[in-house]
């Protein structure tokens, strides 16, 4: 790692810490900085409500934002490299669609399947399990296909087709769902960072770490894959095994994130591009940690904006990620005039 990268990473880390504290201190309710720090270190605040808001709402929300931003960014990076396609991302591969289908079955399926689903529906974990199962099943399907079809482009298209099929099933379920169920499904689609308890956050982070670990293991094969599959094979890379590990990492990251926070748009696709533009490299040793930091920072900023500081209102996080993020990518591309890939 050259010196300039070290400085960049140091700067990004500092920005991340700053964004983290800004995110915690800003919200709909004005809480003085002193009270924020008091809550964080566990001493008493003027109002009981503040203590709860800081330690049980804003803190887990900020941590969730970091996990979601970095995890989606990394899964996007892995997909883009694996498929050597700048448009790839967890959404494109059908992983997020699989999760959506799982959730749709739980929420909207009660009308079709009755009792069994209705009893499951009551638990929040059922949504998490359904989303994970859904993305896992789509992943298995993609993997089975990837064994038969060697062409990564074909897999990408098959992923898109899976997304279409799941979308079609979701529409059928929506048609038969009741107004309340539809409402519930739509609310899930808005995405949510602030609804996790500490225990849920713990489970989330364990699976997240596993995904990150698999990604770190894949760094070498990712760099080799950039040279093209045939070249990678000639270099002695076990392409099937690497592909499996990369897809597993993506599925773990994107699947859990969608399960816990809902389908968050844009981040998975755009963060790797922003990072490549800024760092101007395709070395995954640099890209992977950079995407991690960038994803976390962008997500924290998006969440701070979604909270509309000092107003009573709040916006759905999913809208903000696209609204804020997409123009940034356009601006970067226009400025640099070409895509670094």
């Amino acid at each position, binding site marked *: 790692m050259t010196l300039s990268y070290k400085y960049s990473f140091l700067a990004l880390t500092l920005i991340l810490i700053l964004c983290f504290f800004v995110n915690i201190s800003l919200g709909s*309710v004005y809480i003085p900085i002193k009270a924020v720090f008091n809550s964080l270190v566990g001493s008493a605040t003027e109002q009981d409500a503040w203590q*709860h808001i800081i330690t049980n*709402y804003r803190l887990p929300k900020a941590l969730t934002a970091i996990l979601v931003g970095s995890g989606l960014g990394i899964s996007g990076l892995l997909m883009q490299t694996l498929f050597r396609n700048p448009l790839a991302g967890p959404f494109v591969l059908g992983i997020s669609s699989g999760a959506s289908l799982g959730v749709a079955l739980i929420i909207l399926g009660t009308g079709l399947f009755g009792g069994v689903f209705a009893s499951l529906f009551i638990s929040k974990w059922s949504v998490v399990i359904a989303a994970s199962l859904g993305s896992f099943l789509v992943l298995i399907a993609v993997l089975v296909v990837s064994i038969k079809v060697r062409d990564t482009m074909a897999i990408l298209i098959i992923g898109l087709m899976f997304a279409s099929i799941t979308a079609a099933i979701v529409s059928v379920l929506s048609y038969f769902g009741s107004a309340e169920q539809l409402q519930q499904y739509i609310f899930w689609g808005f*995405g949510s960072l602030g609804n996790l308890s500490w225990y849920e956050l713990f489970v989330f982070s364990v699976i997240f770490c596993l995904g990150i670990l698999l990604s770190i293991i894949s760094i070498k094969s990712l760099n080799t894959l950039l040279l093209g599959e045939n070249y990678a094979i000639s270099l002695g890379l076990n392409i099937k095994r690497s592909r499996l590990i990369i897809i597993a990492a993506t599925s773990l990251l994107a699947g859990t994130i969608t399960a816990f926070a809902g389908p968050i748009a844009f981040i998975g696709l755009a963060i790797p591009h922003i990072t490549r533009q800024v760092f101007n490299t395709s070395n995954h040793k640099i890209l992977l940690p950079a995407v991690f930091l960038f994803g976390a920072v962008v997500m924290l900023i998006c969440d701070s904006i979604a909270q509309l500081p000092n107003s009573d209102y709040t916006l759905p996080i999913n809208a903000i990620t696209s609204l804020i993020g997409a123009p940034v990518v356009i601006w970067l591309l226009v400025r640099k005039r070409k895509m670094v890939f």
Partner: protein
Amino acid sequence: MKKAIFFLFTIFVFSCKNETAKPIAKPVDGHQLELKYAKGFSVTDYSTFKVLNIKNPWPDSEKSYRYVLINKENAAKTTFVKDEFDGIIINPIKKIVVTSTTHIPALELLNAEETLVGFPGTDFISSEKIRMRIDEGKIRELGKNESINTEVLLSLNPNVVIGFGIDGNNKTFETIKKSGIPVIYNGDWVEDSPLAKAEWIKFFGTLYHKEKEADSIFNTIEKNYLEAKKLAQTVKNKPTILSGAMHSDIWYLPNGTSTEAQLLKDANTNYLWQNSQGSGSLKLSFETVFTKAKDADIWINPSNYTSLKALENSSSHNTMFSAFINKNIYTITNTTGKTGGVLYYELGFARPDLVLKDLIKICHPELLKDYKPFFFKPLE
């Protein structure tokens, strides 16, 4: 030439005269149906026929609809300019299709339930009398409200379809209208007060020539409502109220001008957002709601959550409210009919007196000792 000038002059004079005579030419003998609260419709009685005017079928609607209501005998003698009206309806109605459960109580209260021949989503209907008719196969299922099974509906050939619209775009209703079955948009849900919503029973009364019955039913409901309201004002203690629930990160709750808020006000409570305004529900952040309502005494209607466990599962933050800790949460979702329809959504509009009494019983239990709440149950 002189003749020609005289002729032109005569025309001029007569045309002037016609101008001034226009207002007098308008039928003045129309008798307006008395409405105390409802603003969305009016009925003018011209003795041989009535004109029903629907003014506000959906929020901010610019269009109003006019229908002629006429009996068979007079219809044979009279002709109307078709373009002036949105439908000519022969009444009393023999066969009707309604599309919202809120229309059901009116039919039952007016003893007209036997005229109902079809409904979209019959499972939502809870009225025992009408459920019996559904079980006997006398009321056809019409599918989903947004896409009514047009063929079945046409085969039923009702005299009128009572629809409702979120806006003016409902293709199904257009198809029904084209096939000659008039569709009346019912705007009871747009009314801004509980009694105005209830007054729509008079609209149904007109369809059935049962204006007097409708009037006396409404008067009883109004009397009960106002008496209950008066009773509630006798106590000084105003419990603080939280309402709605959080979905994703957004807390949805009724604004201060909504009928829900008016009912809470009439029940002499301190609804924490009673001073807010606007259309639709409030969409607030958790932080705002928590700071304001952490210690609220009572939590009314936490959306469609059916148990304390479900509320806790949806978000652990819910458990931090005093109302949750003290189990002071009341919901309407657990009072359902045989096939799962929520009773409040069916009867709540028509019987605001019962809703108000329920709220008084919850908030001031000492006032209505022997009263058993009709819609609301504590969340368990």
